[in-house]
């Protein structure tokens, strides 16, 4: 007995008085009924009509997958109704307000079917769904689960329509089902014959509430689906423009719109697409990936300007379009009230990070994504295997920060060792080379077939250059220059 709410006791069905008006979908001879609906509503509050889509095939999938598919379908359903809510394996949308616009429930059904079935096929689910429409959310849900594709227009007809349904549509647990079965209850109308207080005592208030909601006796709040924000703006130029810099003021105007949009929704974006439209050619697309979400107009404009700097367009530009689909919550920087040293330090490093991100974004925009590298050390003995230049983004994974070797290593390592000339017992690389210290034996990779077996020496040229040279231990025993102690 969790919460004993004080709704009026469930009225017993008065079968004789009830006027049922159950119509199967798709409706073919429904014109009379339709006319009845379009009459002006005399009640002060407008009635609603909820259309339920039930996907029993989703029950076998994991929760995440279910919500993912339901969200995708909800994206489509939004085109029919502005109020969409989620329920287990089903979606419910309000369609009373759009009946006239679409020209009847049949059209709405056809439109939804054409949208939803391809989406289900895309996810390799069985391409069907059960549906029903009634004036209450739970009522539609129960009717849809029964699989009879029922349509009920009026609230007073709900009782008889629901009464015919088996109790299994309520999705009760095993124990409750067993108890109902033992009590001889097979259909929902049997439940209404029982005293509601006793029902509440035996089956809990949720059970009674569900039926009350289905009948429209109790209010049922719904959690509505809010479609994710998307921003698109475009600008048609009055004449063709070839000089990209002349587009910047227009881009700026468009960015102002974008920033307004983001500010109003308290959002940030880290991915922005700018399309330059050409006549009779495919558009040029600029993909701006930010390292950190931003809604700073100046920064975005600066990045676009940098991109324009090395962009070649195939034809003059006749239009511009900005589209943003990825958003993040805006996290603003806040100043500290108490200026403790630690706090100040932290906030400084945060803002420093920000400017660094801006710098890296700018460099990447101008020089190309692959041009910015970070040096990473790998725990390897082979000198050329101990370093790797990675793109800045993908570094940090492999990097070890403790050197494997303790012997001195040069700052410059040649990617390909340069062979030295040995003449009259003297080594030459433009000038005579004299050995200073060594050897240091490096033997590794014997397992890979590209065995490294070298004796490394520190040497110097007459000019004063400090070199790192090696001699192969096997094969031709050649000498090579491998690095500079810069």
């Amino acid at each position, binding site marked *: 007995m969790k919460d004993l709410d004080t709704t009026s006791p469930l009225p017993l069905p008065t079968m004789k008085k009830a006027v049922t008006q159950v119509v199967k979908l798709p409706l073919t001879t429904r014109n009379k009924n339709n006319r009845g609906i379009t009459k002006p509503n005399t009640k002060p509050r407008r009635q609603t009509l909820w259309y339920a889509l039930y996907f029993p095939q989703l029950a076998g999938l994991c929760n995440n997958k279910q919500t993912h598919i339901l969200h995708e379908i909800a994206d489509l359903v939004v085109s029919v109704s502005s109020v969409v809510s989620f329920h287990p394996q089903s979606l419910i949308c309000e369609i009373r307000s759009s009946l006239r616009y679409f020209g009847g429930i049949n059209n709405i059904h056809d439109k939804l079917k054409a949208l939803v079935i391809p989406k289900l096929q895309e996810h390799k689910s069985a391409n069907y769904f059960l549906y029903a429409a009634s004036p209450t959310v739970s009522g539609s849900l129960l009717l849809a689960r029964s699989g009879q594709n029922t349509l009920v227009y009026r609230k007073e007809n709900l009782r008889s329509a629901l009464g015919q349904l088996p109790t299994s549509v309520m999705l009760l647990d095993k124990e409750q089902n067993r108890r109902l079965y033992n009590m001889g209850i097979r259909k929902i109308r049997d439940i209404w014959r029982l005293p509601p207080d006793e029902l509440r005592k035996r089956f809990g208030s949720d059970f009674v509430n569900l039926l009350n909601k289905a009948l429209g006796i109790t209010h049922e709040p719904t959690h509505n689906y809010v479609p994710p924000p998307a921003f698109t703006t475009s600008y048609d130029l009055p004449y063709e423009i070839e000089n990209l810099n002349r587009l910047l003021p227009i881009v700026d105007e468009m960015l102002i719109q974008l920033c307004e949009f983001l500010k109003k929704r308290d959002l940030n974006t880290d991915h922005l697409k700018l399309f330059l439209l050409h006549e009779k050619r495919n558009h040029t697309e600029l993909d701006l990936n930010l390292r950190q979400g931003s809604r700073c107009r100046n920064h975005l404009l600066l990045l676009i300007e940098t991109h324009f700097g090395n962009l070649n367009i195939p034809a003059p530009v006749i239009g511009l379009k900005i589209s943003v689909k990825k958003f993040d919550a805006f996290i603003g920087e806040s100043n500290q009230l108490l200026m403790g040293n630690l706090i100040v330090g932290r906030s400084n490093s945060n803002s420093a990070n920000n400017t660094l991100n801006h*710098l890296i974004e*700018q460099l990447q925009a101008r020089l190309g994504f692959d041009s910015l*590298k970070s*040096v990473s050390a790998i725990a390897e003995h082979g000198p050329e295997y101990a370093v790797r230049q990675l793109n800045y983004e993908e570094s940090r994974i492999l990097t070890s*920060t403790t050197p494997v070797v303790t012997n001195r290593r040069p*700052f410059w*390592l040649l990617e390909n060792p340069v062979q030295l000339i040995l003449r009259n017992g003297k080594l030459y690389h433009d000038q005579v080379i004299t050995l200073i210290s060594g050897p240091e034996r490096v033997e590794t990779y014997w397992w890979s077939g590209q065995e490294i077996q070298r004796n490394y020496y520190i040497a110097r040229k007459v000019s004063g250059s400090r070199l790192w040279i090696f001699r192969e231990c096997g094969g031709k025993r050649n000498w090579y220059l491998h690095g500079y102690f810069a």
Partner: protein
Amino acid sequence: MTIIRSASASTEPNIGKAFNQHDMSSTKKTEDTTCTQIDQLLQRNPNLWRGCNITDQGFQGLSTGFPELDDILPGQGWPQSGLVEIISRHWGMGELQLLIPLMRSISEQGQWILWIAPPYVPYAPALIQAGIDIHQVLVIKQDTSCKDALWSMEKALKAKDCGMVLTWQNWLPGKVLRRLQLAAETGETLGIFFKRKGSKYSQLPLRLQIKDSDSKNHQFSAAEITVIKARGNFRPLTTQLDLYSQK
């Protein structure tokens, strides 16, 4: 005018003596006041400095880590911001080793070191050995065009969290240098140019040359540094360094 005359009096006391022997006490007084005035001026205006006094340049530099070099550099070390040219005729003269103590302190402060188009790949194990945090090292790849490299340098110099920018560019006209100089002042960043050849008329404010040590017993770590041009010195100053004494 009076200030200038008194300044010359303070630096060349013999002349002062010859002129004003009978009025010694009053000159001393004016001398003192003008001296403080000069000091104030020097402190207030960074574009004023004493002509031939390398140590007293009104700013404290960052220690190079080599006391011998500190002694011959204005401000007893590397400037906090600005441009420095290091000339080494060949690779492997110790030109990077010279900067290692500075790089270490920069990376300890959490600032970044940007290498713009270095001639070879910086070898990470060596940087780690030298105590530099390689997570704060960024490299712009080698085949970047000169124009792009200088553009990147300007951007990086302006960025406050870039502590040091290293570049290996030879084409540096005066106009470019002026822009880079201003960028370095804005971002309080140190920009280092490595050059193979030194031109006679370079506009950079601090120029150093690293050479092989003169000593006959060729040691690995010995090097000779010449300060070709610096604020406050007229003729090149030379010192011998032990580059690896830091370890």
